[in-house]
Structures are given as structure tokens and as C-alpha cells.
């Protein structure tokens, strides 16, 4: 692509040396009035907070300022005009123009009584300033060239002078430590700074160097060296200024300026008196002044009379720190206020990085002036045909310059000044072999702008040329580009419409409407009116209210507000983010601001869905549980190749096919809402697909842990079934069982899994784990099987419930195969009713289900029997179906009599049984009891569920059938008497008879014992 364009791109119309001559920081043409006037663009818009007696809070022109300077008498008192402006905003240009005008080179009349003393920003060394001031008097001020002096010697001289003559403010201060080479070593600091100063003076450009011979940093270092107890530490601000003033005073003196203020007063006075000319000191930028800055400012604000005018230029921002410092303390007033109060004019060239006088239309004329001169001086000429296609601005055109101007920046901040436009953009374009649209695309001084034409429809070359050279076609909403421009850059398009307009033939390209709307909405939301036509690709300024037919229309605002730089930066940032996006979506390459696209995708995915919740998607069941993927703060979105998540995600693959959809997604994030023309259904459909897909991934991940026959829904229902079985011995699983809450108060006995098997039995332990998941399981069943709180999702429930109910054993087997080790990120799947309260891991539930399934399956009939035996033994021993309640009561009495004889203590259970048997109708239900015990004596059961069920029947029988207790107590009583026993019978009647015989014997024996004791 590039080889083709470079063959086509014609750069023969200008020569490198001419370009460099005209487009340099210290423009050569400023020394040549003719060239100067050729390239000078009238500075027609200067904001005057006030100027003379005429203007207040108004815009003034360069002529207004000149005429103000020409007003008044030769020997009037000093007048000061403050001229603020950011670097490169045209201060020098304006000052040069004033200089020429006052010299009489321009159009001004009545200039005979003025003599301009122009101190250029590049000529601010001490000797240059003095020479400039002395020049009209033809005096040689005999000042040494600082650059030719030895820095070390100068520094030593200053130190020696301070020692000898410290001045009024330092005279009482102990200076030895400060000056000593072993301690403060001021001399070395000065030497270094003088060297830097000399270097700075020799540079061509207005380079940044600190014109102070002692900087704040230097002073801080000194202070630290001298220790916190030194006076330089305590009284830092005052002493730093005093020390600096003394250093500068002695420095001036050493190079031959004994008394700058005196000389200034003297020279200007002589001009007035001897030549009848009023000096006008035009000081381009006092910021760059060095040792004379304080002295000059001091002079200006002296109350003493002086007879000259001074235009005091300074770089905006200077007043914030340097001015205060240079002016020193002026009583209670702020230095700026103090200076303003004494000034005749207070003017600003810029606001927020933007030159007032330069707008996009004027910037075109500015560039045109330079191009005309450069082409003329280069002497080759560009074909008329080419110039015509390029609005006579080849290799730019009007749209190009305006678009560049609107997007000028420096160090990332908007800076629409002539210097940036001319030096940083136009110059580089003209010196490059690459065509201008490529140069500006790469330039750090031109903010990224989004393509003006639909990037999905055109190749890079077309897109770039149309973006920079195209304008919106009034009659078609398309972007039109002059055919001559397209030909010049080798853009060939067969499929686009061509139209003939008054000023030529144009190709029409589909505009990048989406991006424009997104960016315009940005402007609207932040309350600006600027971006639309200028930066979003439309050149007609739909949203600016400008007349689309008149490209020269000026911006209308008369207030010096302009576009707020925050808003401008906001827009620039968004343009950059869109550019990033376009690049990524085509190539999948780096995508610095991919978080924006991700943010938009997350928001849109959550607009109509709860993407990370797995539950019944058709339900409205607030409070019901679901399974949430809880990683991150919302649904995880990956930007393919650029910003991919680990784990589950919704992937946004790159590719031009997705460009339009993603542009909407990005726009949603950038503007915090849909753009007006967005097809929201398309985004809704996209969200639905991806949410369904994401939930499918969640399900797949979870079901990887399950055997293929089992779904997670089966797990919930099996869990509920096992809980019901474990808590109540239930083996049926109808619809009621699915939804009925487990209320342990419904059970009259303690759970035999714990009481009979024992707390430490594995089944018991695992059941405890599973029952901890009870509310999770019940909540999940509601979340998956209800349509609303009182309506069942019948179709969904039917099959799963039938599966479990028909063969719970089969699913118990599947549950044993659950392997949560297969789940990636087990901590990310959690159960809860909302994402934020989901804090039980699904794996905890699945493990509990699986572990219990394993243990309960191991439980066999013999296990059960062994646990029953303790209870069954007395019954096996003594029970006979023929027993009646009366018989049992009788036997109890007889045994109690016997035991009374032996003075056996009654157990509390015995007491209970005694009370029970004493009742008229003890309700022993002996026949029913008899029927039940067969179930327990020799259980032969088909399934673990039946075993648990029998366990419950057993516990329930224990609770309900008092016969268990009666036989146990009888057994215990007999056991107690066995201590005294010889023969044993297993028949309860026989046994009692034997015991009664024993009783008689014992009665006799105790009678004997009693008699003996009595004796």
C-alpha cells in the first residue's frame, strides 16, 4: 500500500531549506519585515480584561493594542500592559508586529514619537537586554558577554561579593557556613548554574532552562546540608528570595551592569528628553528573563516616575509561582493583583490551551499564508489542477487543516496554538516523504480521531484519506472527497458513487455515523457544542450551529470561554479509545483501553439477564436459590487476544464482522447509555445468546463432575430425597415431598441415624454434613422447579422427580460417582439467592451428597442388626406373645419385692415403668408391638433407603411402644437379682419362681442378720 502512495505523492512543490527557514521556532522571517508581513496572520482576538480606558472584558485586535500604545504624550508616566499567553500562542508574533508597526514599517501613522525596544524571548541574556535598551541612544553599555566568561571565576566573584557586601537583608545573618566550600558550598552551585545559563543562552530555541542562578531545589539542598537548626531552614522563604536577589545583584555588577534600574530609568529618560521619543519596551516573555527579572519587575512597579511604556509578555502559569517569587512580598496584596492594579492593560492570548484569535477557519488562512510563501520561495510550483483539488492548500486541504487544528495537542493536553500547528504539524508534514494523513495519524501533536467513514466498509488507505480530507456532503449524509485528492494519493474505488458539484468531482463514502453519534452524545452530555463537525468526521458542523455552506464561518461565541479543556480532553480520550478499538477489532492486536469495551459488554449482558445465575430462567421467584459464578464483580468478559480472563468467560472475538455491534457496546460504555440510533434489539439478541452460552458453560463445568446420567437438577432432588429419608425414614418421593419443608418438630423421636447408629458412625457423620445443606437444597429446588412462588414448573419437575422416585437406588449409585475434583475453580460456583449472598460452594453440597451416598450404601442388614441388638436382647429373652399387661405388672411387683429384700436401689427407669404399670390402662399395645418386633428381629431389606426407614420405624416404635421399656426394665431387674442367683431359666415365669424361692431364703437370712445385730 505505502509504496503505491509514495509514488503518487508529489512533494516537489517545496524545498526542505525553505520549509526550515520559515517554519522554525525563531522564525527567520521575523528579521525580514517583508517576509514577516507575508506570513503574519492578524491577531484579531485578544481578550482584554481591561485596556486603557476603553475596553473592559472584551476582545480587542492587534491594532487596538497598537493604537493604545500610540496614544498619550511622550513624557507621560510609565504605562504597563500585561500580555499573557501560553507557549507558542503568538506572543512573539504579536510583539514583532508591534515592533514593526511602531518602527513605521506597517500601516500605523504618527509613530515618530515612539521608539520600540523589543526584547525578544530568545534574547534575554543580561547583555542583550541592556544592549537593546541602550541601542537607540547609540551607547555601548560595556557589558561583558556572559557566555565568554569563566563560570568558576564568576561564581567565586559572587561569593566574595556577598561576603563583603551582603546587602540589607542578609547583613545580620551568619553566612560563613553557607559560603564555605566545605559546608553549604554556594560557589559550586553557582558555577554549575552559570554554566547551564551560558548553555541556555547559546541554544537557538526558547529552550527550557531555569534562569535563576539559585533554584528552589538548590536552596532546599543547601538548607538540608546546613541542618535543620540553621537560620536558612527556619526562615526559608524570605532568606531564599533575599539570597537570590543578592546573587543576581552581584552577578549583574560583575558583568558590568552596576545598576540596571538606574540605567533603565536613565536611558529611557534621555530618549524622551533628547530625542523626543517615548520608549515602548516590548518584552516578549519575562518568564525567560534571568537575573534582571526581579529588577525589571521592581522597576515597573516603583512608584517613582518613569517615562516609558512596557508590554510585559509572560507565559500563562507564570503568575502562579514565579511572579510572586520575583516580585517578593508587596504588603498584604497578592503580587498579581498588585501588578494588575498598576497596569493599563491586562490581555490574554489564550484560554485553556487555545489561542483566541485562532479558530479552525483562521488556522486554514494561517497555514495558507505559510504555504504560499514557502511554495513561492521554493520556486517550483504545484500544478493548478492539484491546487484546485486541494483548496489551494496542497498537500493539505481545508478539511485537513481544520481537523488537525481541532485536534492539536501537546503532552496529551489540548493545545491549539500557532506554534503547535505550524512547527509540530505543518513543518513535519512538509519535511516528510510520507503523505500528510500518515504523518498526522502518527503525530503525538494531533489527537487520535475516529475514522470519518465507516471503517467496516473501506480499507485503511481510503479510510485515512477520507477521514482527513473529506467533508460531509450536504445532500447525502455521506462523506465526500474531491476526486483530485483521491487520485493524488492513489485511492482507487470502483464501488462508490461519484457526484459533480460546483467545485469539482467528488466520491461519496458511507459516513461513520455510529462513531459520530457516540462522540456527539459525549459533547451533549458534557454541555459543549464543539466536537460534532470538527472531530467526529462531519465537517458541516451539524451540532455547532454553523452554516454548513460557509467553511469560513467563525465561531460565534463572544465570551472568552471556548471549549472547556476538560471536555476537550474527554473527547480526545474517547476518540483515542475508539481508535484503539478499531485497531483491535481488525487485527486482535494490543488493545490498551480494552477495559472500556469489556465494561460495556458487562453492562449490556446484565441489562436483561442475570448472566451468572443458573436457575430456572423462566421463573420469577424472588428469594429462591440459584447457582452463581462468583468470580469477579460481574459477568466475566474476555477481549480476545488483548484482555482475556482465566476461567469461564463471555468471549468477544475480534474480526471486522463484529465491528458494528462492538462499536455500540463501546459507545454504551463511553456514553453511559445507548446512542440514539442504536439497534438495541441487536444488542439484546447478542446478550441473550451470550448469557445462554455462559450459563451453558456453567452447567457443563458443574456436570463434568457428575456421571452422564445425572443432571444438577437430579442432585437437588436426590439431596432432598436423602434428607427426607434420613430425617423421617421416608421412601416415597411425590410432588409433596419435593416441596414440603423439612420440619424436625414433626418428628416425635430423635433421629436414629445419630441415636442408634451413634454420632461417630460414618453414616451419621455424613448425614450431618448433608443436613447442613438442607436450606441450600430446598432453596435450589424452589429456584429450579418453580415458575413463581406458588406455581410449579410442572414439565421441568416431572421427569427429574420421576427418575428419582422410580429408582432412587440408581441415582444413589450415580451420586457416589460425583467427583468434584473435576471442577475447575470450585470456589467460584456458589449457592445463594443473590450473587452477593451466594457463599456456599456447590462442591460442598455435591461432596456432602456424594459422601453420604457412599456411606449409606455401605450400611447393611447386619450393621443394622448389631445396632438393634442392644434393644432387642431383653425382648428376645423374655417376650412372649401371650403376655398381658396385668401379668407384666404382677411380675414387676414381685421382682421389686425381691430387690427390696436385697436393698437394691431403684433405677429411675424402673420407677417410670412402675408408674406406667400401675395405671389402670397402661396402653402397652402389646399385640401391635408384637407385630412390629418381627421387622427388627431379622431385617432383610432391599435398599439403603429401606434400612434407614426401618431405623426410623425402630426409633418410632421405641418411642411409641412402652413394652420396649418394660421388658428392658424387667431384664435389668432380673440382672440385678442374678448376682444372688444359682440356677437360671429363660422362661420368665420359671425365672420369677426361682427368684421368689431365693427371696424366701434371703428373708430368713436377713431376719437372722437383724436378730444378730439386735443382740
Amino acid at each position, binding site marked *: 500500500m505505502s509504496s503505491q502512495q509514495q509514488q503518487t505523492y508529489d512533494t516537489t512543490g517545496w524545498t526542505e531549506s525553505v520549509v526550515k527557514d520559515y517554519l522554525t521556532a525563531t522564525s527567520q522571517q521575523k528579521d525580514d519585515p517583508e517576509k514577516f508581513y507575508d506570513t503574519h496572520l492578524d491577531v484579531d482576538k485578544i481578550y482584554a480584561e481591561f485596556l486603557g480606558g476603553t475596553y473592559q472584558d472584551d476582545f480587542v485586535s492587534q491594532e487596538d493594542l497598537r493604537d493604545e500604545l500610540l496614544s498619550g504624550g511622550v513624557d507621560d508616566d510609565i504605562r504597563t500592559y500585561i500580555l499573557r499567553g501560553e507557549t507558542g500562542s503568538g506572543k512573539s508574533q504579536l510583539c514583532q508586529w508591534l515592533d514593526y508597526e511602531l518602527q513605521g514599517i506597517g500601516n500605523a501613522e504618527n509613530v515618530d514619537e515612539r521608539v520600540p525596544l523589543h526584547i525578544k524571548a530568545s534574547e534575554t541574556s543580561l547583555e542583550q537586554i541592556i544592549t537593546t535598551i541602550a541601542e537607540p541612544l547609540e551607547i555601548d553599555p560595556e557589558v561583558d558577554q556572559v557566555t565568554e566568561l569563566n563560570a568558576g571565576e564568576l561564581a567565586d566573584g559572587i561569593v566574595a561579593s556577598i561576603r563583603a557586601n551582603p546587602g540589607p537583608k542578609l547583613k545580620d545573618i551568619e553566612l560563613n557556613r553557607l559560603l564555605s566550600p566545605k559546608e553549604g558550598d554556594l560557589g559550586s552551585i553557582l558555577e554549575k548554574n552559570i554554566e547551564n545559563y551560558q548553555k541556555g543562552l547559546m541554544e537557538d530555541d526558547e529552550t527550557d532552562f531555569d534562569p535563576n542562578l539559585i533554584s528552589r531545589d538548590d536552596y532546599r539542598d543547601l538548607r538540608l546540608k546546613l541542618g535543620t537548626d540553621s537560620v536558612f531552614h527556619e526562615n526559608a522563604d524570605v532568606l531564599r528570595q533575599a539570597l537570590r536577589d543578592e546573587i543576581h545583584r552581584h552577578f549583574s555588577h560583575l558583568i558590568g551592569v552596576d545598576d540596571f534600574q538606574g540605567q533603565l530609568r536613565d536611558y529611557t529618560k534621555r530618549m524622551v528628553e533628547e530625542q523626543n521619543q517615548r520608549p515602548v519596551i516590548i518584552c516578549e516573555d519575562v518568564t525567560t528573563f534571568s537575573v534582571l527579572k526581579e529588577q525589571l519587575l521592581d522597576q515597573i512597579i516603583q512608584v517613582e516616575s518613569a517615562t516609558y511604556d512596557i508590554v510585559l509578555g509572560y507565559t500563562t502559569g507564570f503568575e502562579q509561582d514565579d511572579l510572586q517569587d520575583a516580585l517578593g512580598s508587596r504588603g498584604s496584596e497578592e503580587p498579581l493583583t498588585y501588578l494588575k492594579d498598576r497596569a493599563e492593560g491586562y490581555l490574554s492570548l489564550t484560554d485553556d490551551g487555545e489561542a483566541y484569535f485562532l479558530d479552525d477557519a483562521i488556522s486554514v488562512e494561517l497555514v495558507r499564508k505559510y504555504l504560499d510563501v514557502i511554495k513561492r520561495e521554493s520556486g517550483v510550483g504545484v500544478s493548478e489542477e492539484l491546487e484546485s483539488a486541494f483548496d489551494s492548500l496542497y498537500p493539505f486541504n481545508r478539511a485537513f487543516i481544520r481537523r488537525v487544528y481541532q485536534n492539536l495537542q501537546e503532552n496529551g493536553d489540548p493545545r491549539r496554538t500557532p506554534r503547535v500547528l505550524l512547527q509540530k504539524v505543518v513543518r513535519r508534514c512538509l519535511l516528510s516523504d510520507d503523505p500528510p494523513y500518515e504523518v498526522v495519524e502518527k503525530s503525538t501533536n494531533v489527537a487520535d480521531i475516529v475514522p470519518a467513514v465507516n471503517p467496516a466498509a473501506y480499507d485503511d488507505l481510503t479510510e485515512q484519506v477520507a477521514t482527513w480530507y473529506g467533508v460531509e456532503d450536504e445532500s447525502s449524509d455521506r462523506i465526500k472527497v474531491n476526486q483530485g485528492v483521491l487520485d493524488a494519493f492513489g485511492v482507487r474505488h470502483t464501488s462508490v458513487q461519484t457526484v459533480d458539484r460546483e467545485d469539482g468531482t467528488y466520491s461519496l463514502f458511507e459516513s461513520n455515523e455510529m462513531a459520530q453519534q457516540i462522540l456527539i452524545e459525549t459533547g451533549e452530555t458534557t454541555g459543549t457544542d464543539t466536537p460534532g463537525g470538527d472531530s467526529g468526521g462531519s465537517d458541516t458542523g451539524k451540532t455547532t450551529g454553523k452554516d454548513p455552506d460557509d467553511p469560513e464561518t467563525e465561531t460565534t461565541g463572544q465570551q472568552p470561554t471556548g471549549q472547556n479543556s476538560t471536555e476537550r480532553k474527554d473527547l480526545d480520550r474517547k476518540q483515542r479509545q475508539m481508535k484503539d478499538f478499531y485497531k483491535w477489532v481488525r487485527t486482535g492486536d494490543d488493545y490498551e483501553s480494552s477495559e472500556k469495551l469489556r465494561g460495556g459488554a458487562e453492562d449490556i449482558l446484565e441489562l436483561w439477564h442475570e448472566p451468572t445465575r443458573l436457575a430456572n*430462567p423462566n421463573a420469577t421467584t424472588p428469594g429462591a436459590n440459584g447457582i452463581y459464578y462468583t468470580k469477579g464483580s460481574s459477568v466475566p468478559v474476555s477481549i480476545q487476544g488483548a484482555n482475556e480472563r482465566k476461567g469461564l468467560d463471555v468471549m468477544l472475538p475480534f474480526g471486522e464482522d463484529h465491528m458494528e455491534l462492538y462499536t455500540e457496546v463501546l459507545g454504551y460504555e463511553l456514553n453511559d447509555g445507548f446512542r440514539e440510533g442504536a439497534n438495541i434489539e441487536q444488542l439484546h439478541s447478542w446478550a441473550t445468546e451470550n448469557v445462554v452460552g455462559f450459563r451453558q458453560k456453567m452447567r457443563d463445568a458443574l456436570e463434568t463432575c457428575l456421571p452422564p446420567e445425572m443432571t444438577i437438577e437430579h442432585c437437588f432432588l436426590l439431596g432432598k430425597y436423602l434428607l427426607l429419608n434420613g430425617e423421617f425414614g421416608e421412601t416415597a418421593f411425590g410432588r409433596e415431598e419435593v416441596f414440603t419443608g423439612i420440619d424436625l418438630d414433626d418428628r416425635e423421636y430423635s433421629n436414629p441415624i445419630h441415636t442408634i447408629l451413634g454420632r461417630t458412625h460414618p453414616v451419621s457423620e455424613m448425614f450431618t454434613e448433608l443436613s447442613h445443606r438442607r436450606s441450600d437444597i430446598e432453596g435450589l429446588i424452589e429456584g429450579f422447579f*418453580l415458575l413463581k412462588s406458588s406455581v410449579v414448573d410442572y414439565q421441568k419437575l416431572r421427569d427429574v422427580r420421576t427418575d428419582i422416585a422410580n429408582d432412587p437406588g440408581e441415582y444413589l449409585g450415580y451420586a457416589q460417582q460425583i467427583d468434584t475434583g473435576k471442577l475447575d475453580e470450585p470456589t467460584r460456583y456458589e449457592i445463594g439467592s443473590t450473587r452477593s449472598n451466594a457463599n456456599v460452594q456447590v462442591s460442598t453440597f455435591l461432596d456432602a451428597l456424594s459422601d453420604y451416598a457412599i456411606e449409606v450404601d455401605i450400611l447393611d442388614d447386619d450393621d443394622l442388626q448389631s445396632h438393634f441388638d442392644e434393644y432387642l436382647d431383653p425382648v428376645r429373652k423374655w417376650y412372649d406373645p401371650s403376655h398381658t399387661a396385668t401379668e407384666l405388672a404382677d411380675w414387676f411387683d414381685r421382682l421389686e419385692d425381691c430387690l427390696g429384700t436385697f436393698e437394691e436401689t431403684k433405677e429411675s427407669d424402673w420407677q417410670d415403668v412402675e408408674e406406667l404399670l400401675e395405671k389402670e390402662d397402661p396402653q402397652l399395645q402389646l399385640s401391635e408391638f408384637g407385630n412390629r418386633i418381627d421387622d427388627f428381629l431379622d431385617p432383610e431389606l432391599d435398599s439403603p433407603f429401606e434400612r434407614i426407614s426401618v431405623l426410623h420405624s425402630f426409633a418410632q416404635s421405641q418411642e411409641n411402644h412402652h413394652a420396649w421399656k418394660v421388658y428392658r426394665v424387667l431384664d435389668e431387674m432380673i440382672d440385678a437379682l442374678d448376682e444372688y442367683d444359682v440356677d437360671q431359666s429363660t422362661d420368665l415365669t420359671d425365672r420369677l419362681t426361682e427368684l421368689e424361692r431365693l427371696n424366701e431364703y434371703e428373708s430368713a437370712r436377713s431376719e437372722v442378720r437383724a436378730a444378730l445385730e439386735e443382740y
Partner: protein
Amino acid sequence: MTYTYATNKSSRDLVSYQSVRGAETKAIFETIQEGTSISGIKDNFVKPVEDSSDRNVDHVLQFLEATDFIERPSERTVQPIENQPFENLPFELRLLHHLSRQENPQDHFIRITEVVADADVALYDKEDLLEDVKRQLGSYPFDWTKEKIKMWYDMLAPLGLVSVRDNQEILTSPSPAIVYDLLDEYETREGDRRVRHALDWVEEHFFACYTSRGGVPTVHRGLSDTIGTLVADGVLELRSPSDATHEVDVPSTKADRVSSFTLNDRPARPAYQYPLEAHEIEVKA
């Protein structure tokens, strides 16, 4: 095929069935056959808990009867009204058709789609909708309330006519499934592919499509977006032949005015399913 009205049905205003939503209405209807007992339906659908209430299910049955899907041959049973038009179509579309057949004042339900079409917005604030409905449909013998509006979208959003965004605004675009099936049905029935005729037919039998009808009618924003989605997905092709007479303006498509359509195969993707079916692929086969 003529439309049959259920006899002796309740005259309760359709928007007053405030607990009835699309999901259970469809689910319950799909279990009803000839001789289905009401108690059987309740056994299936009422959550079987102690304090369970069958009021919801009763209301759904009443609503189905009021919209001529079922009738009650006896006190204890219900059965579908057979041979209704569009029996071959999914329940979602049939309900829209049945709603469009209701006579005054029960036509209030479907007429809300006219208010939506008139508004011509993609996202409709619920309160704005209520205000517009009060203004445009103020002649009915009941007061419009936000509960009635909620009932309307709770019924129709699950069926796909609209979507509810963030519980704040109603997305007025019908599901791509609805638009696809209707265009397909029209083409099959009438053997015609003229967009204007197809949409006129949808307006007559299902829901309002146009925001303006004079001259070249303009499809309302929500429907236009859905049509645009089908076009962008390559499912639907729209053409505007130079000799076209019956044109329609579909603002969301790049071609301004269109006259004929071609449907390609229906994608299996979730966005082309009805909302209640879209998530079915989640469950293992």
C-alpha cells in the same frame, strides 16, 4: 377458519389478571387436552405445601378461557377450543392472535401495542407508557394503573413481544422468533413476499406494526430494530425494486424503503427462540 369465542366466559378485564404471567399461562395451556380435570391441573401446578394457594392457577384458567383458548364442558374439566385459526403456530403467536380478536372492551389488551407503535421508541419508560395509555385508551370502563401495565408486560415479555430492561424500561422490539415465524407463516399462507402486505397482515391478525400509516407507512422503532437484526444476521433479505409500489419504511435497515423480502433458514441460536424456550439448551438432552 373462523374464530370461536368461548361461551359464558368471564368479562373481567384482561389486564386485571394481575398475578397471571406468560410463563405459567403457556405451561398450563400446554397440558390441557380434552377432558383434563381442573383438579389434575392443580395437582400438577399448585405448589403442594400446607398453605398452598390455587388462586393463581384458577386465574390462569380464567384468562385462557377469556382469551378463547379453553372452555369448560363441565364444572370439573376444561378442554381446548378446537379449530381456532393459527393452531399450527406457537402458543406465543396464537395468544397474540386471540388477543387481537377480542371485542370491545376486551380489545384493550392488544391495543396497548398500538400505543407502543405510536410512541416509536426503542425503550419505553413504564411511566410514560402508562401516561400514554391513559391518554390514548382512556375510554375503557376502568382506570389504567401501573399494576395493569405491569400485568401487560408480564404476560407479553415472556412470550417475546417486548423485553423488560432492568425493570425500568420496556424494550419494544419483538423477539426475532416472532418476526421470523410471522413472515414465514405469511409467505406460506399467501405465497407472497411483499413486506407491506405481510406487515398489514400482521397488524390485522396479531399486533400493531406501524408508527405512521399515511403514504409510505413507517414501521415502529422496536419492530424496525428487530427487522434490522434479522437483516444484519443474514436471515432476512429486503429489496426495493425500482418499480415497487407498496413500499414500507424500515428505518433500522440501510435501505430506506423496502418492498419485498426473502427469508433464509431460521438459525438455531437462542436469540431466534422464543424467550421461554431460549434457555432450553441449558438442560442436558
